[in-house]
Protein backbone atom coordinates (compact mmCIF):
# COMPACT_ATOMS: atom_id res chain seq x y z
CA UNK A 1 0.00 0.00 0.00
CA UNK A 2 1.24 3.49 -0.68
CA UNK A 3 2.31 5.39 2.39
CA UNK A 4 1.05 8.56 0.83
CA UNK A 5 -2.73 8.83 0.93
CA UNK A 6 -4.47 10.79 -1.76
CA UNK A 7 -7.16 13.15 -0.53
CA UNK A 8 -10.70 12.72 -1.74
CA UNK A 9 -12.54 15.99 -2.06
CA UNK A 10 -16.05 15.08 -0.97
CA UNK A 11 -17.63 18.46 -1.34
CA UNK A 12 -17.95 20.21 -4.66
CA UNK A 13 -16.89 23.32 -2.83
CA UNK A 14 -13.81 21.72 -1.33
CA UNK A 15 -10.73 23.68 -2.24
CA UNK A 16 -7.93 21.69 -3.76
CA UNK A 17 -5.51 21.40 -0.96
CA UNK A 18 -2.84 19.52 -2.84
CA UNK A 19 -1.56 16.14 -1.83
CA UNK A 20 -1.44 15.39 1.83
CA UNK A 21 1.11 13.47 3.75
CA UNK A 22 -0.49 10.89 5.95
CA UNK A 23 2.75 9.54 7.30
CA UNK A 24 4.57 10.67 10.42
CA UNK A 25 3.98 10.06 14.06
CA UNK A 26 0.97 10.89 16.10
CA UNK A 27 0.33 10.38 19.77
CA UNK A 28 -2.94 9.08 21.07
CA UNK A 29 -4.75 11.60 23.19
CA UNK A 30 -3.03 14.52 21.50
CA UNK A 31 -4.72 17.90 21.44
CA UNK A 32 -8.14 18.03 19.83
CA UNK A 33 -7.99 20.04 16.62
CA UNK A 34 -9.78 23.24 17.40
CA UNK A 35 -9.67 26.79 16.18
CA UNK A 36 -11.33 30.07 17.03
CA UNK A 37 -12.32 32.83 14.65
CA UNK A 38 -14.24 35.77 16.06
CA UNK A 39 -17.17 34.71 18.22
CA UNK A 40 -16.96 31.00 17.43
CA UNK A 41 -14.62 28.16 18.35
CA UNK A 42 -14.89 25.00 16.28
CA UNK A 43 -13.41 21.60 17.13
CA UNK A 44 -13.34 18.26 15.36
CA UNK A 45 -14.12 15.43 17.77
CA UNK A 46 -14.23 11.68 17.23
CA UNK A 47 -15.94 9.00 19.24
CA UNK A 48 -13.27 6.40 18.41
CA UNK A 49 -9.57 6.46 19.24
CA UNK A 50 -8.56 4.85 15.98
CA UNK A 51 -9.79 4.25 12.45
CA UNK A 52 -10.73 0.62 11.85
CA UNK A 53 -10.64 -0.52 8.19
CA UNK A 54 -14.16 -0.96 6.79
CA UNK A 55 -15.83 0.40 9.94
CA UNK A 56 -17.67 3.59 10.81
CA UNK A 57 -15.93 6.49 12.47
CA UNK A 58 -18.11 9.09 14.20
CA UNK A 59 -17.13 12.72 13.80
CA UNK A 60 -18.52 15.61 15.77
CA UNK A 61 -18.15 19.20 14.63
CA UNK A 62 -18.48 21.15 17.85
CA UNK A 63 -19.18 24.87 17.64
CA UNK A 64 -18.91 26.92 20.82
CA UNK A 65 -20.63 30.23 20.24
CA UNK A 66 -20.05 33.32 22.35
CA UNK A 67 -23.01 34.68 24.26
CA UNK A 68 -25.21 36.97 22.19
CA UNK A 69 -24.18 35.32 18.90
CA UNK A 70 -25.82 32.60 16.87
CA UNK A 71 -25.12 30.21 14.00
CA UNK A 72 -27.73 29.09 11.47
CA UNK A 73 -29.52 25.76 11.12
CA UNK A 74 -29.58 24.21 7.62
CA UNK A 75 -33.36 24.51 7.18
CA UNK A 76 -35.39 27.59 6.41
CA UNK A 77 -34.41 30.97 7.83
CA UNK A 78 -35.20 34.45 6.60
CA UNK A 79 -31.55 35.46 6.90
CA UNK A 80 -28.06 34.04 7.29
CA UNK A 81 -26.44 30.90 5.97
CA UNK A 82 -25.64 27.58 7.71
CA UNK A 83 -22.07 26.44 8.38
CA UNK A 84 -20.44 24.46 5.59
CA UNK A 85 -17.76 21.82 5.90
CA UNK A 86 -15.46 20.82 3.06
CA UNK A 87 -13.98 17.52 4.14
CA UNK A 88 -10.86 15.94 2.76
CA UNK A 89 -10.47 12.25 3.56
CA UNK A 90 -7.91 9.58 2.70
CA UNK A 91 -8.58 7.69 -0.55
CA UNK A 92 -11.41 5.18 -0.35
CA UNK A 93 -13.04 6.69 2.74
CA UNK A 94 -16.69 7.76 2.44
CA UNK A 95 -18.44 10.51 4.36
CA UNK A 96 -22.10 10.41 5.31
CA UNK A 97 -24.35 13.46 5.47
CA UNK A 98 -24.16 16.00 8.27
CA UNK A 99 -26.75 15.41 10.98
CA UNK A 100 -28.17 18.63 12.44
CA UNK A 101 -29.68 18.91 15.93
CA UNK A 102 -32.96 20.81 16.27
CA UNK A 103 -32.48 24.59 16.27
CA UNK A 104 -34.32 27.26 18.23
CA UNK A 105 -36.51 30.02 16.84
CA UNK A 106 -34.98 33.48 16.69
CA UNK A 107 -37.29 36.39 15.90
CA UNK A 108 -35.95 39.83 14.98
CA UNK A 109 -37.85 43.12 14.57
CA UNK A 110 -39.66 43.33 11.23
CA UNK A 111 -41.15 39.80 11.43
CA UNK A 112 -37.83 38.18 10.63
CA UNK A 113 -37.78 34.50 11.59
CA UNK A 114 -34.58 32.51 11.77
CA UNK A 115 -33.74 29.04 13.08
CA UNK A 116 -30.44 29.14 14.89
CA UNK A 117 -28.06 27.60 17.38
CA UNK A 118 -26.82 29.42 20.46
CA UNK A 119 -24.26 28.42 23.07
CA UNK A 120 -22.98 25.12 21.71
CA UNK A 121 -23.98 22.83 18.89
CA UNK A 122 -22.41 19.60 17.64
CA UNK A 123 -23.08 18.49 14.06
CA UNK A 124 -22.57 14.76 13.62
CA UNK A 125 -21.18 12.96 10.62
CA UNK A 126 -20.20 9.37 10.11
CA UNK A 127 -17.33 8.33 7.90
CA UNK A 128 -16.67 4.85 6.57
CA UNK A 129 -13.00 3.99 6.73
CA UNK A 130 -11.63 2.38 3.55
CA UNK A 131 -11.67 -1.40 3.86
CA UNK A 132 -8.08 -1.45 2.62
CA UNK A 133 -6.76 1.27 4.93
CA UNK A 134 -3.31 -0.03 5.92
CA UNK A 135 -3.18 -1.30 9.51
CA UNK A 136 -0.46 0.36 11.53
CA UNK A 137 -0.62 3.47 9.38
CA UNK A 138 -1.88 6.92 10.20
CA UNK A 139 -4.88 8.55 8.59
CA UNK A 140 -5.44 12.23 8.28
CA UNK A 141 -8.77 14.04 8.12
CA UNK A 142 -8.74 17.65 7.02
CA UNK A 143 -11.58 20.11 6.85
CA UNK A 144 -12.25 23.65 5.91
CA UNK A 145 -15.13 24.93 8.02
CA UNK A 146 -16.97 28.14 7.12
CA UNK A 147 -19.75 29.78 9.06
CA UNK A 148 -21.67 32.98 9.50
CA UNK A 149 -22.08 34.15 13.09
CA UNK A 150 -24.54 36.94 13.82
CA UNK A 151 -25.49 39.05 16.78
CA UNK A 152 -26.50 42.63 16.03
CA UNK A 153 -23.94 42.38 13.24
CA UNK A 154 -22.90 39.38 11.20
CA UNK A 155 -19.38 38.12 10.85
CA UNK A 156 -18.14 35.29 8.63
CA UNK A 157 -15.63 32.92 10.19
CA UNK A 158 -13.56 29.99 9.01
CA UNK A 159 -11.11 27.40 10.25
CA UNK A 160 -8.84 24.74 8.83
CA UNK A 161 -8.95 21.65 11.02
CA UNK A 162 -6.76 18.59 10.87
CA UNK A 163 -6.99 15.34 12.78
CA UNK A 164 -4.72 12.33 12.58
CA UNK A 165 -5.77 8.89 13.74
CA UNK A 166 -3.92 5.58 13.91
CA UNK A 167 -5.37 2.83 11.74
CA UNK A 168 -5.89 -0.19 13.96
CA UNK A 169 -7.82 -3.43 14.16
CA UNK A 170 -9.87 -2.26 17.14
CA UNK A 171 -10.77 1.17 18.48
CA UNK A 172 -11.72 2.12 22.02
CA UNK A 173 -13.87 5.16 22.84
CA UNK A 174 -12.38 8.61 23.25
CA UNK A 175 -13.27 10.85 26.20
CA UNK A 176 -15.71 12.62 23.80
CA UNK A 177 -17.60 9.42 22.94
CA UNK A 178 -20.27 9.78 25.64
CA UNK A 179 -20.98 13.39 24.72
CA UNK A 180 -21.29 12.46 21.03
CA UNK A 181 -23.64 9.61 21.93
CA UNK A 182 -25.85 12.06 23.80
CA UNK A 183 -25.87 14.38 20.78
CA UNK A 184 -26.86 11.43 18.60
CA UNK A 185 -29.67 10.46 20.97
CA UNK A 186 -30.95 14.04 20.92
CA UNK A 187 -31.19 14.23 17.13
CA UNK A 188 -34.70 14.48 15.68
CA UNK A 189 -36.13 11.00 15.13
CA UNK A 190 -39.12 9.72 13.17
CA UNK A 191 -42.12 10.12 15.50
CA UNK A 192 -43.42 7.00 17.21
CA UNK A 193 -46.48 5.56 15.52
CA UNK A 194 -49.61 7.40 16.66
CA UNK A 195 -47.88 10.31 18.39
CA UNK A 196 -48.65 12.96 15.78
CA UNK A 197 -51.93 13.32 13.90
CA UNK A 198 -52.67 15.47 10.88
CA UNK A 199 -55.99 16.91 9.75
CA UNK A 200 -56.57 19.01 6.64
CA UNK A 201 -59.26 21.61 6.33
CA UNK A 202 -58.92 23.30 2.99
CA UNK A 203 -55.33 24.53 2.82
CA UNK A 204 -54.91 24.43 6.60
CA UNK A 205 -53.11 21.52 8.20
CA UNK A 206 -53.63 20.90 11.90
CA UNK A 207 -50.78 19.02 13.53
CA UNK A 208 -51.76 17.59 16.89
CA UNK A 209 -49.86 15.92 19.71
CA UNK A 210 -52.36 15.35 22.52
CA UNK A 211 -51.13 16.48 25.91
CA UNK A 212 -48.13 18.47 24.65
CA UNK A 213 -47.25 21.69 26.49
CA UNK A 214 -45.89 23.42 23.40
CA UNK A 215 -45.25 22.60 19.75
CA UNK A 216 -42.76 24.23 17.41
CA UNK A 217 -42.25 23.34 13.77
CA UNK A 218 -39.07 24.23 11.88
CA UNK A 219 -39.49 23.94 8.10
CA UNK A 220 -36.74 22.28 6.07
CA UNK A 221 -37.65 23.27 2.52
CA UNK A 222 -36.96 26.73 1.21
CA UNK A 223 -39.81 26.17 -1.26
CA UNK A 224 -42.00 27.90 1.28
CA UNK A 225 -44.94 25.56 1.98
CA UNK A 226 -45.99 27.69 4.97
CA UNK A 227 -47.90 30.94 4.49
CA UNK A 228 -46.95 32.38 7.88
CA UNK A 229 -44.31 30.38 9.76
CA UNK A 230 -43.77 33.19 12.25
CA UNK A 231 -47.41 33.24 13.34
CA UNK A 232 -48.34 29.61 12.81
CA UNK A 233 -45.38 27.38 13.53
CA UNK A 234 -45.07 27.72 17.30
CA UNK A 235 -47.80 27.63 19.92
CA UNK A 236 -48.49 26.57 23.47
CA UNK A 237 -50.62 23.47 23.77
CA UNK A 238 -50.91 20.37 21.65
CA UNK A 239 -51.98 21.70 18.26
CA UNK A 240 -50.48 23.78 15.49
CA UNK A 241 -52.68 25.10 12.73
CA UNK A 242 -50.43 25.63 9.72
CA UNK A 243 -51.71 27.60 6.75
CA UNK A 244 -50.15 26.04 3.67
CA UNK A 245 -49.50 27.70 0.38
CA UNK A 246 -51.79 26.42 -2.33
CA UNK A 247 -50.37 25.67 -5.72
CA UNK A 248 -52.23 24.05 -8.59
CA UNK A 249 -54.91 22.85 -6.19
CA UNK A 250 -52.44 21.18 -3.86
CA UNK A 251 -50.60 22.05 -0.68
CA UNK A 252 -47.38 20.76 0.78
CA UNK A 253 -45.37 18.67 1.02
CA UNK A 254 -44.31 19.63 4.50
CA UNK A 255 -40.87 18.62 5.65
CA UNK A 256 -39.23 19.71 8.86
CA UNK A 257 -38.67 19.18 12.54
CA UNK A 258 -41.48 19.14 15.10
CA UNK A 259 -40.36 19.79 18.67
CA UNK A 260 -42.76 18.71 21.36
CA UNK A 261 -42.35 20.23 24.78
CA UNK A 262 -43.94 18.43 27.68
CA UNK A 263 -45.48 20.00 30.74
CA UNK A 264 -42.06 19.69 32.42
CA UNK A 265 -40.43 21.81 29.69
CA UNK A 266 -38.33 18.97 28.29
CA UNK A 267 -38.45 18.77 24.49
CA UNK A 268 -38.33 15.85 22.09
CA UNK A 269 -37.91 16.60 18.43
CA UNK A 270 -39.21 14.56 15.49
CA UNK A 271 -38.77 14.51 11.76
CA UNK A 272 -42.01 15.36 9.99
CA UNK A 273 -42.48 14.48 6.38
CA UNK A 274 -46.04 15.01 5.27
CA UNK A 275 -46.89 14.47 1.62
CA UNK A 276 -48.53 16.99 -0.65
CA UNK A 277 -52.31 16.81 -0.65
CA UNK A 278 -55.17 18.11 -2.78
CA UNK A 279 -56.87 21.12 -1.17
CA UNK A 280 -60.50 20.32 -1.87
CA UNK A 281 -60.82 17.23 0.29
CA UNK A 282 -60.81 17.25 4.07
CA UNK A 283 -58.79 14.31 5.31
CA UNK A 284 -58.18 13.19 8.83
CA UNK A 285 -55.27 10.90 9.34
CA UNK A 286 -53.65 9.20 12.24
CA UNK A 287 -55.29 8.35 15.54
Amino acid sequence: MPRRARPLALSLLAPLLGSLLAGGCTREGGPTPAARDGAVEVALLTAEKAAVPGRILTLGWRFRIDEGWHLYWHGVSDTGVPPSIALTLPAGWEAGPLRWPAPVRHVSPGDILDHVYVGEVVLLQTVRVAADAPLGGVAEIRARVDWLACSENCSPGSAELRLTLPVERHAGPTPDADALTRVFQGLPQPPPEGLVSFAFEGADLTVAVPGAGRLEFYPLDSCGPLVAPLADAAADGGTLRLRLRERDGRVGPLRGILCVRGGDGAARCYELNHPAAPVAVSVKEGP
Partner: protein
Amino acid sequence: MRRATILTLSGALALLLAVPALAALAPGAKAPDFDLVDTAGRHHSLQKYLADGQVVVLEWFNPDCPFIVKHHKLHRTMDATFAAVKERGVVWLAINSSAAGKSGHGVERNAKAVEEFGMTFPVLLDPTGATGKAYEARNTPTVFVIGRDGLVAYAGAIDDDPSPQNAGKTNHVAAALAAVLDGGKPAVAETKPYGCSVKYAD
Protein backbone atom coordinates in the same frame (compact mmCIF):
# COMPACT_ATOMS: atom_id res chain seq x y z
CA MET B 1 -51.98 1.48 5.40
CA ARG B 2 -52.80 4.49 3.31
CA ARG B 3 -50.52 6.74 5.31
CA ALA B 4 -47.54 4.46 4.99
CA THR B 5 -47.93 4.43 1.21
CA ILE B 6 -48.18 8.18 1.02
CA LEU B 7 -45.15 8.70 3.21
CA THR B 8 -42.94 6.68 0.93
CA LEU B 9 -44.01 8.91 -1.94
CA SER B 10 -43.34 12.12 -0.12
CA GLY B 11 -39.67 12.37 -1.05
CA ALA B 12 -40.49 12.21 -4.74
CA LEU B 13 -43.33 14.69 -4.35
CA ALA B 14 -41.07 17.08 -2.51
CA LEU B 15 -38.87 17.23 -5.58
CA LEU B 16 -41.75 17.58 -8.02
CA LEU B 17 -43.58 20.31 -6.19
CA ALA B 18 -40.74 22.55 -5.14
CA VAL B 19 -41.80 26.14 -5.68
CA PRO B 20 -39.90 29.37 -5.12
CA ALA B 21 -39.92 30.97 -1.70
CA LEU B 22 -42.03 34.01 -1.16
CA ALA B 23 -40.02 36.10 1.23
CA ALA B 24 -40.61 39.66 0.08
CA LEU B 25 -43.24 41.63 -1.82
CA ALA B 26 -44.17 39.34 -4.70
CA PRO B 27 -43.76 40.02 -8.42
CA GLY B 28 -46.90 41.52 -9.94
CA ALA B 29 -47.61 43.63 -6.86
CA LYS B 30 -47.81 47.40 -7.22
CA ALA B 31 -44.53 48.83 -5.95
CA PRO B 32 -45.26 50.95 -2.85
CA ASP B 33 -44.41 54.60 -3.38
CA PHE B 34 -41.79 56.36 -1.27
CA ASP B 35 -40.08 59.69 -0.99
CA LEU B 36 -36.76 59.23 0.78
CA VAL B 37 -33.66 61.37 1.24
CA ASP B 38 -30.17 60.17 0.28
CA THR B 39 -26.88 60.81 2.10
CA ALA B 40 -26.40 64.06 0.14
CA GLY B 41 -29.84 65.37 1.12
CA ARG B 42 -31.52 64.78 -2.26
CA HIS B 43 -35.10 63.50 -2.44
CA HIS B 44 -35.96 60.39 -4.43
CA SER B 45 -39.58 59.66 -5.28
CA LEU B 46 -40.56 56.40 -6.92
CA GLN B 47 -43.61 58.06 -8.43
CA LYS B 48 -41.44 60.65 -10.12
CA TYR B 49 -38.98 58.13 -11.58
CA LEU B 50 -41.89 56.07 -12.96
CA ALA B 51 -43.49 59.20 -14.41
CA ASP B 52 -40.19 59.81 -16.20
CA GLY B 53 -40.45 56.34 -17.75
CA GLN B 54 -37.59 54.81 -15.80
CA VAL B 55 -37.11 51.22 -14.73
CA VAL B 56 -36.22 51.32 -11.02
CA VAL B 57 -34.01 48.91 -9.10
CA LEU B 58 -34.15 48.93 -5.29
CA GLU B 59 -31.40 47.30 -3.27
CA TRP B 60 -31.78 46.91 0.50
CA PHE B 61 -28.47 48.01 1.92
CA ASN B 62 -26.40 48.06 5.12
CA PRO B 63 -22.68 48.88 4.85
CA ASP B 64 -21.93 46.82 7.97
CA CYS B 65 -23.39 43.60 6.56
CA PRO B 66 -20.81 41.16 5.12
CA PHE B 67 -23.12 40.28 2.22
CA ILE B 68 -23.24 43.95 1.23
CA VAL B 69 -19.46 44.13 1.51
CA LYS B 70 -19.28 41.06 -0.74
CA HIS B 71 -21.37 42.67 -3.47
CA HIS B 72 -19.92 46.17 -3.17
CA LYS B 73 -16.29 45.57 -2.39
CA LEU B 74 -15.18 41.98 -2.96
CA HIS B 75 -17.03 41.48 -6.24
CA ARG B 76 -18.71 44.82 -7.09
CA THR B 77 -21.76 42.90 -8.35
CA MET B 78 -24.20 45.75 -7.81
CA ASP B 79 -22.29 48.53 -9.56
CA ALA B 80 -21.34 46.23 -12.45
CA THR B 81 -24.96 45.16 -12.93
CA PHE B 82 -26.05 48.80 -12.91
CA ALA B 83 -23.28 49.90 -15.28
CA ALA B 84 -24.48 47.42 -17.90
CA VAL B 85 -27.96 49.00 -18.10
CA LYS B 86 -27.39 52.54 -16.90
CA GLU B 87 -27.79 54.07 -20.37
CA ARG B 88 -31.08 52.29 -20.97
CA GLY B 89 -33.25 54.28 -18.58
CA VAL B 90 -32.55 52.45 -15.34
CA VAL B 91 -32.32 54.07 -11.90
CA TRP B 92 -30.65 52.08 -9.11
CA LEU B 93 -31.33 53.08 -5.52
CA ALA B 94 -29.85 51.54 -2.38
CA ILE B 95 -32.18 51.81 0.62
CA ASN B 96 -30.97 51.47 4.18
CA SER B 97 -33.73 50.71 6.70
CA SER B 98 -31.43 50.46 9.75
CA ALA B 99 -33.09 52.14 12.74
CA ALA B 100 -31.31 54.58 15.04
CA GLY B 101 -28.87 52.70 17.27
CA LYS B 102 -28.71 49.73 14.89
CA SER B 103 -25.84 48.60 12.70
CA GLY B 104 -25.27 50.61 9.55
CA HIS B 105 -27.59 53.46 10.57
CA GLY B 106 -27.14 57.12 9.76
CA VAL B 107 -26.16 59.69 7.17
CA GLU B 108 -22.52 59.77 8.15
CA ARG B 109 -21.97 56.01 8.06
CA ASN B 110 -23.66 55.67 4.69
CA ALA B 111 -21.98 58.70 3.14
CA LYS B 112 -18.69 57.08 4.10
CA ALA B 113 -19.81 53.80 2.53
CA VAL B 114 -20.75 55.48 -0.76
CA GLU B 115 -17.21 56.79 -0.90
CA GLU B 116 -15.45 53.68 0.39
CA PHE B 117 -17.33 51.34 -1.96
CA GLY B 118 -17.07 53.79 -4.89
CA MET B 119 -20.83 53.50 -5.35
CA THR B 120 -22.32 54.78 -8.60
CA PHE B 121 -25.81 55.20 -7.11
CA PRO B 122 -27.18 56.83 -3.96
CA VAL B 123 -28.05 55.37 -0.57
CA LEU B 124 -31.50 56.43 0.64
CA LEU B 125 -32.21 56.45 4.34
CA ASP B 126 -35.35 54.81 5.72
CA PRO B 127 -34.73 54.92 9.49
CA THR B 128 -38.42 54.40 10.36
CA GLY B 129 -38.36 51.20 8.31
CA ALA B 130 -41.69 52.16 6.70
CA THR B 131 -40.44 51.62 3.16
CA GLY B 132 -38.58 48.43 4.08
CA LYS B 133 -41.70 46.98 5.68
CA ALA B 134 -43.90 48.07 2.76
CA TYR B 135 -41.62 45.98 0.53
CA GLU B 136 -41.40 43.21 3.17
CA ALA B 137 -37.62 43.45 2.90
CA ARG B 138 -35.96 41.12 5.42
CA ASN B 139 -32.47 40.80 3.98
CA THR B 140 -29.61 43.02 3.02
CA PRO B 141 -29.33 42.74 0.13
CA THR B 142 -32.83 42.17 -1.28
CA VAL B 143 -33.28 43.46 -4.81
CA PHE B 144 -36.49 44.58 -6.53
CA VAL B 145 -36.81 45.43 -10.21
CA ILE B 146 -39.79 47.70 -10.84
CA GLY B 147 -41.05 47.95 -14.41
CA ARG B 148 -42.25 51.14 -16.08
CA ASP B 149 -45.79 49.99 -15.25
CA GLY B 150 -44.99 50.44 -11.56
CA LEU B 151 -45.29 46.73 -10.82
CA VAL B 152 -42.65 44.57 -9.18
CA ALA B 153 -41.08 42.57 -12.02
CA TYR B 154 -38.45 40.79 -9.92
CA ALA B 155 -37.94 40.30 -6.19
CA GLY B 156 -35.20 38.40 -4.44
CA ALA B 157 -31.48 37.74 -4.40
CA ILE B 158 -28.95 39.40 -6.70
CA ASP B 159 -27.48 36.00 -7.59
CA ASP B 160 -27.35 32.31 -6.76
CA ASP B 161 -24.53 32.13 -4.22
CA PRO B 162 -25.71 32.70 -0.64
CA SER B 163 -22.23 32.51 0.89
CA PRO B 164 -20.74 35.64 2.44
CA GLN B 165 -17.71 35.56 0.15
CA ASN B 166 -18.16 33.71 -3.15
CA ALA B 167 -19.36 35.27 -6.40
CA GLY B 168 -22.50 33.78 -7.91
CA LYS B 169 -22.73 32.03 -11.26
CA THR B 170 -26.12 33.42 -12.27
CA ASN B 171 -27.02 37.09 -11.80
CA HIS B 172 -30.81 37.02 -11.44
CA VAL B 173 -31.14 40.81 -11.47
CA ALA B 174 -29.14 41.23 -14.68
CA ALA B 175 -31.37 38.63 -16.33
CA ALA B 176 -34.55 40.27 -15.03
CA LEU B 177 -33.42 43.71 -16.20
CA ALA B 178 -32.58 42.39 -19.66
CA ALA B 179 -36.08 40.93 -19.97
CA VAL B 180 -37.85 44.03 -18.66
CA LEU B 181 -35.85 46.40 -20.88
CA ASP B 182 -36.75 44.27 -23.89
CA GLY B 183 -40.42 44.63 -22.99
CA GLY B 184 -40.79 41.13 -21.63
CA LYS B 185 -41.12 39.41 -18.27
CA PRO B 186 -38.26 37.83 -16.33
CA ALA B 187 -38.09 34.06 -16.69
CA VAL B 188 -37.15 33.97 -13.01
CA ALA B 189 -39.29 36.61 -11.28
CA GLU B 190 -38.67 35.59 -7.70
CA THR B 191 -35.89 34.00 -5.68
CA LYS B 192 -35.23 33.63 -1.99
CA PRO B 193 -33.15 36.59 -0.90
CA TYR B 194 -30.13 35.89 1.29
CA GLY B 195 -28.01 37.99 3.60
CA CYS B 196 -28.21 39.76 6.95
CA SER B 197 -31.45 40.77 8.60
CA VAL B 198 -32.68 44.31 7.94
CA LYS B 199 -32.07 46.15 11.21
CA TYR B 200 -35.53 47.47 12.03
CA ALA B 201 -36.33 49.23 15.30
CA ASP B 202 -37.14 46.99 18.28
